[in-house]
């Protein structure tokens, strides 16, 4: 499931709220300008700037104000980037390959909290839901559930044989096995591709809460201690 980064928008909203507290005319004008830029409303922006510059005393002090605002946005963006890289970020889930855990109805997108602390040690357990970049296209990110960890034996319904997950790799599958592109098609994936672990659903509000670890899905992974059966 591809996902989009939502932090930038959050930062902008937070900053706008902060700006509105000390609402003066100019601040408000600039916030409005930036909103228009964000919404890609170029024509509206042109009209707006024309109006602004037709007012007499506005040109004075514009530059320093612009500089201030740029600096503030830069700082907020920097902090947001660091937090989303190192600690946690919020991403939206697209597609139905993880339903019913995410997107039980196909017309809405869920937003989930992804924590990055697990990337220090790369320690995961069965049933964790992780975000990882696709092994065939590094620009795509997928969200799936870990079924097998290094050393486990995995048997798949459509293949009759059993294979061992190699060292430093993991085996993922979507909850909705009918419409999911996962390890059954591209095999075990290096752990280094993991970008974070999904812990909570944050939106929509009625389904807010922890993401459960489901481990009972594949009893075969318990065979890891006695591979001599195969």
């Amino acid at each position, binding site marked *: 499931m591809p996902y989009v980064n939502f932090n930038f928008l959050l930062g902008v909203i937070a900053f706008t709220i902060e700006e509105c507290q000390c609402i003066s005319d100019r601040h408000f004008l600039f916030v409005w300008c930036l909103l228009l830029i964000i919404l890609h409303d170029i024509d509206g922006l042109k009209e707006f700037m024309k109006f602004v510059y037709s007012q007499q005393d506005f040109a004075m002090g514009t530059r320093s104000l612009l500089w201030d605002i740029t600096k503030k946005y830069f*700082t907020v963006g*920097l*902090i947001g*980037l*660091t937090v989303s*890289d*190192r600690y946690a970020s919020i991403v939206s889930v697209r597609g139905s390959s993880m339903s019913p855990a995410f997107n039980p109805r196909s017309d809405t997108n869920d937003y989930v909290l992804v924590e990055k602390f697990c990337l220090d*040690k*790369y320690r995961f357990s069965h049933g964790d839901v992780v975000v*990882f*970049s*696709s*092994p*065939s*296209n*590094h620009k795509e990110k997928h969200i799936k559930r870990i079924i097998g960890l290094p050393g486990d034996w995995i048997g798949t319904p459509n293949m009759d044989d059993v294979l061992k997950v*190699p*060292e*430093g*790799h993991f085996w993922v599958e979507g909850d909705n096995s009918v419409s999911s592109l996962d390890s059954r098609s591209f095999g075990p*994936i*290096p*752990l*280094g*591709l*993991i970008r974070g672990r999904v812990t909570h659903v944050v939106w929509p509000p009625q389904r807010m809460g922890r993401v459960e670890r489901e481990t009972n899905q594949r009893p075969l992974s318990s065979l890891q201690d006695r591979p001599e059966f195969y």
Partner: protein
Amino acid sequence: MVVGSLKLWTNLVVEGFQKSLSIAKFLCLLHATNAYICTPITPYGPSMLPTLNLTGDLVLVERVSTWLGKVDRGDMVLLRSTEDPRKVVIKRIMAMEGDTVTYLVDPKNSDASKTCVVPRGNIWIQGDNIYNSRDSRTFGAVPYGLVEGKLFWRIWPLKSFGSLHGEAKEDS
């Protein structure tokens, strides 16, 4: 009296908050530069031997070409190891997706060679020291998503200070 000390404390708290905020800002800037622009590393190990020394080198790794997708054959890259994700290794890219590679399976003992095609979204990496390197010859092609940066400048030792691009080897 009480009001006065309260004011003092408030001032102290405000000042402390501002100080820590500026430190946090600095750390954020540091993180952003390290993660998205470039970072120094000290490589260690025998696998890149004629190019990089066993130990004691200091090289710069740039991240820009990784996320622009500008990494190409012959570049030395920093990538997360497939065998142990806690480690990063330095190898040279020998082939990109769709290329055909021919490699010696066991260069120490035999001339046997193998040919294979690199799958979509993957790269073929090898160490310069083919006699002592664990690379794609043992574990196959690796996903591009593991690449974390490209080596581009050597700082230490000073006598070989300079760009690392000219040393690209002809690939097999």
